[in-house]
């Protein structure tokens, strides 16, 4: 069946079974591979996107659920002129990624957190940032989130 929604502000329509996870509609049908497959059970967060502005783990959201809704992926964070989102820039400044595979999801989670609470506290970061990073970039993720919101830079860097 054809399911219509928007991705990063552009209308799209995919021919897919209703139970197809949004993740695979994005990756296999729309060719948007910035959103990653990590576990398939909403446990790791590598597939995080925004649906109508709220954070969601796209491996566990049927594409039929987003019909008529607005989906934002990592590819949609940049401004039209290519300027990076301040969270993306903070990620570069703090040199967060190692293998980088989980970082699309980490950045989407951080953007959602900041849009929701403004300047998150350490406790709010602890609570919201539940995505898995096997490389162990967590301290720099924290640093980048704080820096993106203008909090005192505690880079911990040499």
């Amino acid at each position, binding site marked *: 069946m054809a399911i219509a929604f928007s991705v990063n502000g552009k209308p799209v329509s995919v021919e897919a079974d209703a139970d197809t996870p949004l993740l695979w509609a994005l990756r296999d049908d729309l060719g948007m591979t910035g959103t990653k497959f990590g576990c398939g059970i909403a446990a790791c967060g590598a597939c995080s996107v925004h649906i109508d502005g709220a954070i969601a783990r796209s491996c566990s959201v049927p594409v039929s659920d987003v019909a008529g809704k607005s989906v934002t992926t990592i590819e949609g964070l940049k401004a039209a002129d290519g300027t*990076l989102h301040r969270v993306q820039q903070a990620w570069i400044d703090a040199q967060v990624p190692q*293998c980088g*595979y989980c970082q699309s999801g980490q950045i989407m989670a951080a953007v959602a957190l900041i849009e929701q609470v403004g300047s998150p506290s350490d406790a709010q970061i602890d609570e919201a940032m539940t995505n898995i990073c096997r490389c162990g970039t967590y301290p720099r993720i924290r640093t980048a989130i704080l820096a993106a919101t203008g909090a005192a830079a505690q880079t911990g860097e040499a």
Partner: protein
Amino acid sequence: MADNPTPDLDIPEAIQPEAKPRKKGVKRRIFLAGSALLVGGGIFGVWWTDSSVKAKAKALTVGPGEHGFQTWMKIAEDDTVTLFSPHIDFGQGSHTALGQMLADELDADWTRLKIEQAPADLSFANIALGKGFLPEIVGEAVAGLLPDAIIGMLVRSMPLMITGGSSAIRFTGEVGMRKTGAAVRAALIAEAADRLGVPADELTTADSKVTHAKSGRSLRYGELAAGAATRSLSSDPVLKTRDQWKLIGQPVPRRDIPAKVDGSAVYGIDFTLPDMRVATIASAPVRGGKLESVDEAPALAVKGVEKVVKLDDAVIVVAKGYWQAQKGLAALSPKFTDGGHAAVSTSAIYAAQEKLRKAGGEPDNQGGDGDVDAAFGAADAKVIEADYRVPFLHHAMMEPFALTGHFKDGTLHLWGGLQDPLSTRTKAAKAAGLDVDKVVFNPMIMGGGFGRRFPDLVEIIDQVAVLAKQVPYPVKLIWSREQDVRTGTYRPQSSAGLKASLKDGAITGWRSDYVQSGNAEGEVPFIYNIPATSRRHFAYQSNQIDGPWRSVNATQMGFYTESFMDELAAAAGEEPYRFRRKHLAPGSRHIAVLDEVAKRSNWDSPLPDGVGRGIAIVESFGTIVAEVIEVSLKDDGTPRILKAFAVVDCGTTVNPLNAEAQIMGGLIMGLSSAMGEQITLDKGAVMQSNFSDYPILKLADAPPQVDVHFIESGAKTGGIGEPGLPPASPALANAIAAASGKRIRNLPLVDQAKA
């Protein structure tokens, strides 16, 4: 390791050192040293002495208007310098660091340096890596006498193009990049001297230009490249001294990071081709089991499913997309045999290991000095004993295995991320029944690896090689997370009995008896000065395939030794830092590292009740790391990690920003494994399936920051990707003991910490 899954390195008789009885241990160490040497492939021709190799490399990489100097370096007439790295990037950042080493010696313009992946071709076999590892095989004296041409021949015969053993910087960088940069710079100067008609010693270099200050003239590297490339390169160029470095040691931002924040980086799993199909797979739940039967019909009835392929030990479903393949696979009820391993379980393995260790048989490998039994039997000796256990550990790289294959016109093309491009080719050729020349492998970046992506242990290569030959279209095989967790090549389940004697507060004898598949002797140095020591390895192999897991045997050896040091300190009535200190060589690098971590962690400052600090120091991959972990205890007795400190002596840090990230990440991975990770077996099958039952430490449970400090000792450059991990688990267990008095000897610790 099943026991050494890598082929033996066949060193010609002529360069074999005198036969030593520990040859077996040495071989093992080579494997462990990077899990590597043997595995893979290609390289970096340090000098182009072999013209056919040079021609091949040149044909692959050097275009019009460009001039090749080494198999892995070229200069274009527009001044762009391109480095072809034989190492793959799976997050360790070595591409940028290798670029720093080359560009610094070359005096190249950093902004015009491009870093690319070396082609998976034998002409790129890594001679520098061969030279780095060779002394570990044949000894420094012998290795030093070998000409590069012989090393190149050896390396190509392996073939060697691996990424592992924390080897990129200490071997490829030190041996390959710096020397080449310096030699090419000398050739550029010689060319400029001729062109300008001035003595070479009046010329200086900077930012990809050669300048003659007296006459105010200068020539760009791009202008000099054609002529310089025809000059012979010195095999022993003068390297810069530390005070002359401009890039080495600088916190240069990593080149790969921008593409990793906007979704544009293309990993193996992201690769697509027109008309490509996607497949997924289920292997026998019991390692060693075979596929008995499967009714294909239920999968073929699923919309989008096109084909079911039966392998010896697995079933594959091919479909339009991953979701359809996954649905098709879920519809199947394949029957697998248990391979005769129905009695294998975690507890049965520990029981068998303990029985083996206590049977009094001859160890399979051993090391140490002095008469340990005499020390234990001395009249006034206080003898302490403790047993430890650690479970199988899964790598849990965030990108599950994915490999695309297309068999077209007799050639198999592959795309994906694996640690060794050359042995990937060899393995695929064998599985597909093709000549190696009929396999083209296109290496891509990897979403983590941690030791899991060494081709010899990567079954997806064989699976795709077989699959691609059966279908007319390109096909990408993706392992589900469940397949990845259950079909791992785990860090071995291991157990140990440690025993030591104390006299007047000093250790007089030490014995470590450990049981696991592989030998650690020669790989993990025992750093303490004790009059009598004995380390004995008893080999035990379960039905699992054990593989290298980040820092390899240093994880469990570090846990055993450093936990036991704390137990001995307690028995001696001393505090753990000073107790370690007095058993280390005075004036040693180890003492400097230990002292620094004590200072930075404020070791002697008092702590509130219920808060404890633990310390540990482990040397691995040529690098010494000491860590202090500070914990409080939650109401249920489990630890909350408050602070973490790491002090590192790896000789020289090429890129402190990236080195810090590697140590921090290793420390956190070590804490994660110690807290809750374990692969357990029942009836021969893995009981875990996904992150729901294989818990990885999350941000809230990790230390908020890690204080990482480097001691720039200038000693021989050590690795950085792995050494941060081993001290973390014993430091954590030691911190819990300090906070609660409870000594945890079996990992993972979270269940035992509970009151």
